[in-house]
């Protein structure tokens, strides 16, 4: 038995070029399958970890998923803002413990700029209820102070005291700059693995101040208000994009939600983050499953190629099988010999696929983090991935029966003298 397996390995090594190519195909297909699964898993967990302790997300009336996407994940843009008065009404609801106003719309090198208040640093929670921590500096206090997410500071190499200019609107190029009113970096947050890392935080008043001499998305010609004069204006915000709300008692969440949704002066929407996330997963679930099914098909194609290569080699190996038969090998042992080869390549391909994925994860993690805010963990295999791997090996086992059976039949038909 042990010797038969060794013979299978040596025979495979003898045909290492063709088998090597199929090995690469199997390994790549396994990498793809596990990669899709991993990105799917990481996306879910990173979304789920992005907000914690927030009972309601409030914004202009739109879909719950869209509100979550722009308010919490900084993906896409708000279709409408809500009035400051509406925000105050929500914040002053007796059931509400705290509220964080969020004002979005400007950017810096493609990264979102968020106007908020000190409440953000006090009440915002992520992961399993962790508060934001400062890696350096402190919350903003001056009008043109900015606090950077960890990723922003790292990617753009900013440190405390640096001066930065904010662009009007979202995007990376061709944007009008608020270059007359630069900000000073006063704080850098510790890494959270959430969209906070990619966000620049300034005060709501600052957002107002940089837009004082603007109208309709462009600077007003002939009007320029220098930074030293902006304090003379009323900088109280008139509109915000959304708000995060924490309740004194979570049991009141549906009542407060109903009150906000029925707010008479403006159409508002309040959503439970968990419910909105579930809706999001329902929406992307089909795409996820399709992607997973496609990559599973790629694995099947890889295994089919493997079986085809081994079956093709069987023609040249008829004499080899007859020799083994003549020295006493049973047809069952030849079955084992050929099946072992297919299974051996499948298992090796699966292991190679895992190693390749680990390598790719390590190499691409910074890129994925920068572009999608998704932190890929450089881990080996999760339980779900292990289950996929087991499925691949099981499929390989099933596929290996084909060459095994062919060898079995061939050895019975040929006996000791193959007719070539």
């Amino acid at each position, binding site marked *: 038995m042990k*010797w038969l397996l060794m013979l299978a390995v*040596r*025979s495979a*090594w*003898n045909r290492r070029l063709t088998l090597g190519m199929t090995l690469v195909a199997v390994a790549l297909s396994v990498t793809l399958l596990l990669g899709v699964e991993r990105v799917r898993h990481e996306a879910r967990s990173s979304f789920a970890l992005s907000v914690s302790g927030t009972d309601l997300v409030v914004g202009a009336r739109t879909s719950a998923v869209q509100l979550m996407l722009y308010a919490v994940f900084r993906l896409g843009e708000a279709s409408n803002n809500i009035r400051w008065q509406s925000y105050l009404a929500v914040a002053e609801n007796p059931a509400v413990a705290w509220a964080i106003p969020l004002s979005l719309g400007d950017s810096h090198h493609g990264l979102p700029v968020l106007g908020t208040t000190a409440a953000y640093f006090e009440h915002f929670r992520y992961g399993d209820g962790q508060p934001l921590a400062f890696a350096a500096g402190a919350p903003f206090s001056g009008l043109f102070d900015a606090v950077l997410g960890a990723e922003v500071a790292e990617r753009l190499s900013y440190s405390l005291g640096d001066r930065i200019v904010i662009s009007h609107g979202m995007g990376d190029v061709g944007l009008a700059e608020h270059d007359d009113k630069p900000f000073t970096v006063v704080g850098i947050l510790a890494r959270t693995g959430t969209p906070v890392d990619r966000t620049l935080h300034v005060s709501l008043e600052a957002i107002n101040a940089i837009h004082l001499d603007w109208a309709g998305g462009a600077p007003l010609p002939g009007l320029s208000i220098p930074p030293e004069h902006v304090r003379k204006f009323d900088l109280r915000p008139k509109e915000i994009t959304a708000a995060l709300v924490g309740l004194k008692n979570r049991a009141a969440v549906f009542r407060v939600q109903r009150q906000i949704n029925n707010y008479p002066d403006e159409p508002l929407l309040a959503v439970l983050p968990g419910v909105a996330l579930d809706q999001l997963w329902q929406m992307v679930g089909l795409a996820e499953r399709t992607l997973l099914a496609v990559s599973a098909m790629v694995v099947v194609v890889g295994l089919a190629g493997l079986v085809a290569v081994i079956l093709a080699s069987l023609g040249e190996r008829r*004499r*080899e099988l*007859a*020799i*083994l*038969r*003549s*020295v*006493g*090998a*049973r*047809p*069952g*042992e030849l079955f084992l010999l050929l099946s072992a080869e297919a299974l051996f390549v499948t298992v090796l391909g699966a292991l190679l696929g895992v190693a390749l994925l680990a390598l790719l994860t390590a190499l691409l993690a910074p890129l994925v983090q920068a572009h999608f805010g998704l932190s890929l963990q450089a881990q080996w295999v999760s339980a779900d991935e292990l289950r996929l791997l087991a499925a691949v090996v099981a499929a390989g086992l099933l596929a290996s029966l084909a060459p095994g059976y062919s060898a079995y039949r061939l050895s*019975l038909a040929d*006996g*000791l*003298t193959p007719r070539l």
Partner: protein
Amino acid sequence: MPATVIRIRDLRFRWANDAGFCLDIPLFEAQAGERIFLHGPSGSGKSTLLGLLGGVLVPERGSLHLLDRELTQLRPAARDRFRANHIGFIFQQFNLIPYLSLVDNVLLSCRFSARRLARATAAGNSPAAEAHRLLTRLDLDPSLHGRQVTRLSVGQQQRVAAARALIGQPEIVIADEPTSALDAERQGAFLALLRDECERSGSTLLFVSHDRRLAAGFDRELSLSAPGAGAPSEVTQ
């Protein structure tokens, strides 16, 4: 060891998908240590006879007695084990596994048979030592023993196959046209070596060939006649 090593009686074999062919052997016996030349032109049923003796084919009727066993009574797995334990085969050519060394090819015979493994160990100090000894006796230089067999000439390859058939001293050695790929001079040398080694290990040698010129030096010469229309093949003494 029983004096009669092979006894075939009233044997009849027909291929399921070839009604025209029929192998019919009323009686054939081989004694221990005998060296028998079996003449059979192509199509006379040589391969079929080899398959029957090797236990990969089963006769329609009749008795196929090898050593103390009736092959027709054995289950397929037991026939495979019997072949591994008691019969060494040498074929026409391409007798070797291309990706194994000379020694590993010789040792193939011991992989499926504990009996031959034990005998080879008893004969040398280890199966490998016995393989080296046999290869050297068959004029294969020790420097070649660890090499891949694909580098060898056809004559050398056939000698490796002979060593594989002989290791572990099987009672029966069956050679099927082992010299057909060799030139006349090497044919004689190979035959002499094979006969000598069979004598040394006490094996009965059944040498099958279409070429009667090789019959000299054998104890007996038999003929397997070509099957005519309906006429059975038989061994004439």
